[in-house]
């Protein structure tokens, strides 16, 4: 984990490598110790809610007494068994997975197609269309969500998977990043493909896309997590219980006064994919943050 974060922040990795070469002296250790202690304390505070979630999920049926609640003497997985055998929660997890995975695939496809055309194709209106798309990022989501609800309702998409999914596919920040990246691919590569007789779609599929793997991976983690964690639109567009995604379902559990351990077990289940994606694709996610954050 530490390696991945270091490779994305180049200077620090360089310095870490230098650091590793030098032997550690006692004096140095005593100087570094307070820094480590401070960082450990902050890390513990940051990680505390995750710890609390785990601890509460393995203590079903017990009165929540502080501070004993935080140091469980007995561990029981009853809440997990109950959660997983309930009709709804596996269903919600499946909905979340479909919503996140299918959206990611199509966002990546459409964003890279459009990014490619905006970077490498000349056609009338290219700049105008592009800047209209990017400028719309300024419109607050909360203003558009009511018309979007009316529109999807008129199309008969409320309470359907496509009605939830399709409106989220026009991801212009993804398109913007793709365009910036594809712009850096040399034109010679495209010309070579053309000389080899590759058609337009073939050029895109087997020349451009393989070149964009790093950014595709970055966007995939970003989009997957954003959709897995999405709440407002899935809640508004899906009223029936079996169509909820996990985040919406979690909230209904809370409203229905389900025992805390069950809620926390469901929370742990919803957290697992996030955590796995974060651990394995952390490097890409960090890169994504840097790309969106730097001017």
């Amino acid at each position, binding site marked *: *984990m*530490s390696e*991945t*974060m*270091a490779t994305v*922040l180049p200077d620090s990795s360089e310095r*870490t490598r230098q*650091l590793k070469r030098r032997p550690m002296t006692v004096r140095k250790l005593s100087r570094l110790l307070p*820094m*480590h202690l*401070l*960082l450990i304390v*902050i*890390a513990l505070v*940051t*990680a505390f809610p995750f710890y*609390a*979630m785990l601890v*509460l999920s393995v203590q079903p049926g017990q009165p929540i007494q*502080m501070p004993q609640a935080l140091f469980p003497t007995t561990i029981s997985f009853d809440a997990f068994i109950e959660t997983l055998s309930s009709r709804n929660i596996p269903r919600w997890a499946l909905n979340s997975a479909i919503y996140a995975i299918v959206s990611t695939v199509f966002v990546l496809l*459409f964003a890279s197609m*459009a990014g490619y*055309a905006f970077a*490498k194709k*000349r*056609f*009338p209106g290219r*700049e105008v269309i592009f800047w*209209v798309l990017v400028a719309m990022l*300024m*419109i*607050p989501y*909360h*203003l*558009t*969500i*009511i*018309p979007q609800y*009316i*529109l999807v309702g008129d199309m008969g998409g409320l309470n359907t998977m496509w009605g939830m999914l*399709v409106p989220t*596919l026009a991801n212009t920040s993804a398109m*913007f990043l793709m365009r*910036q*990246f594809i*712009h850096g691919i040399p034109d010679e590569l495209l010309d070579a493909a053309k000389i080899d007789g590759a058609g*337009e779609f073939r050029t895109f599929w087997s020349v451009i896309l393989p070149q964009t793997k790093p950014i595709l991976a970055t966007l995939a983690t970003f989009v997957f997590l954003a959709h897995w*964690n999405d709440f*407002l639109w899935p809640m508004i567009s899906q009223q029936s219980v079996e169509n909820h995604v*996990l985040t919406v379902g979690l909230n209904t559990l809370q409203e229905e006064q389900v025992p805390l351990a069950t809620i926390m077990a469901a929370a742990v289940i919803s957290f697992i994919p*996030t955590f796995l994606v*974060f651990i394995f694709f*952390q490097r890409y*996610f*960090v*890169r994504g*943050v*840097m*790309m969106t954050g730097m*001017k």
Partner: protein
Amino acid sequence: MTSTTTRPTLPATPEPPAATPPRRRRHWWNSKEAIAGYIFIGPMVLLFAVFRIWPAIYGIVLAFGDYSLRRTYTFIGLDHFIELFQDAIFWDALKVTVIFAAIQMPLAMIVSLGMAQLCNRALRGMGIYRSIFFLPTVTSSVLIALVFMWIFSGSGPINALLEMFGLEGVGWLTDRFWVLPTLAILSVWSSFGYNMLILLAGMLAIPTEYYEAASLDGASGWAKFWHITLPNLKPALFFVLIIETIKSLQTFDSIFVMTGGGPARGSYTLTFMIYDQGFGYFNFGYASAAGVVLLIITLALSLIQRKIVGKND
């Protein structure tokens, strides 16, 4: 990170079309390249026009009209806005929104900057610390809200800690005074990793020579931070500032899950009012008018950002 990937995402200057090799002029309708271009942007533009542009325009149109559940629209001009400006609930919501941003933003800036400074050193295991600090950023806001509800509940760990020190517990989410600071703490906890990373990247871009020169002049650590780090970090700081402000204006999930706008509308923000009017009472027009106010505030902030950052570039 190569130079191609770190370049900006926010509108810089458009690349000149000269990037593509010049070729014979032809009418676009029989230019294969143009047709291919339109086909490639087709799906995105179509989705975008239907699900982004149309709703944005219709959102503004709705604000100037009445939309009943029988799906008829009548233009009523500024009536919603006049009503809005006479509505005590709207002014309360605006007040709550501004107070929340005023608490959340400085807190977020101080914590993010402090953490970036703390993490900006070569230390064994630093990658692991950073990963932990970054984990809340990727976690679902609903999950975070649920856990924080327990942490800040009357018999939760925060109050238990206070009582251990002989202090009286606080109704973090049930007391009108404490609810906004509590939501602000949650918001800072869940986003400082993101801001920290942006500031950290900004710090790493500052040439080390500056610091070495300052060291030769005998500058203290604090002086270096004040005279080298901060001035060089300005663009990154403004970016974080504006992003955080817009995010705090649009906070919704945690409020919806934890307080439902309460207690006694103590956390009833503008976004919550839009939701409440829209999907609670189905006053689509009235909700959209509040949405237009949010749009204006957001645009104003973005313009300010452009002005300030533009000056620094």
